[in-house]
């Protein structure tokens, strides 16, 4: 029993460390990238959560895909993801990254309908583009997921 207690508390500490030090690389296209850059900057300061912008994917833990992924940039995104070292996480930002957004639905041939068709996604942030607060909400959600206590929250239903 004591071993179990020890190992769970050590695992908790390690999870805490991983969730509080999410160094990120970011791929940006369009308006989501603008909002993402705002979030990295002074006013919304992602470094509060221990996240630093890294330009070397080998040193990063979190891949923030902001904006559209095209068939042509799919390969580059995959390569970027493969260059990262596990444990690694992916955040999809905005409608285009979530499921292709306005482009995929209108039948554009060159658009990948969602980042999750290329790399596994851990957290989806809705918005077109999402506010910086929404992006930080996504980071917090991811931290909860890493710490293993994410609560599946459903928006309240209107009773009939």
């Amino acid at each position: 029993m004591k071993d179990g207690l020890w190992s769970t508390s050590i695992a908790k500490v390690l999870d805490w460390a991983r969730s509080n030090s999410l160094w990120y690389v970011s791929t940006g296209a369009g308006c989501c990238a603008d909002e993402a850059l705002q979030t990295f900057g002074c006013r919304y300061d992602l470094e509060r959560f221990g996240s630093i912008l890294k330009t070397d994917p080998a040193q990063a833990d979190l891949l923030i895909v902001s904006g559209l992924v095209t068939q042509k940039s799919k390969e580059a995104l995959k390569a970027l993801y493969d260059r990262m070292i596990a444990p690694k996480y992916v955040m999809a930002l905005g409608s285009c990254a979530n499921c292709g957004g306005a482009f995929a639905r209108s039948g554009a041939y060159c658009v990948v309908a969602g980042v999750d068709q290329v790399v596994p996604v851990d957290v989806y942030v809705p918005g077109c583009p999402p506010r910086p607060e929404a992006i930080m909400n996504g980071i917090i959600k991811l931290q909860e997921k890493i710490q293993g206590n994410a609560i599946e929250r459903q928006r309240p239903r209107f009773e009939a």
Partner: protein
Amino acid sequence: MKTSVLSTTRVYFSSISAGVRSLVQACSSILPYLWSATELRKEVTEQYPDPVSSRTPDELPSRTRGLLENDIQRCTGCKECEEVCPVKCIKVENEPGEDPGKTWVAVFDIDHASCIFCGLCVEVCAPQSLIHTREYEGAALALPQLVTSFGRGRVTDEQREKWDIMRRSQEAENL
């Protein structure tokens, strides 16, 4: 340009002093951010989950287009929003309801994953039941969680039978 030992020496020392001056200038120019009585000292960061230093949804501009919300009591199920949506992220299904004249909006699903927050559906909504809230916190760990359902749910056969009985008794009373 004339070059002599003297002028070269002068250029050498003046460039050194320019370098030193620019270094001192650079170092002193960032000092007010550390110690000063002015606005520069203050941090500009909005610390998001903290409602004091960051803006809450209520403080956002009134026309902010946040996540969609539908008041299903007022919704008539006219499907105008479904028609006008450019990404087809709204799904409406109607059934005959309790009152034969009124529709029962069984399914009203908004897929926030693909919604582009354009506001067209809100504009065409005749009963004004569909609105943009100022809410933005919607991050989810899986795509199906981003679908928000407002529908009343499918009517079960038992419910329909009960309604039929009620309607018949009402008609009998009226007669």
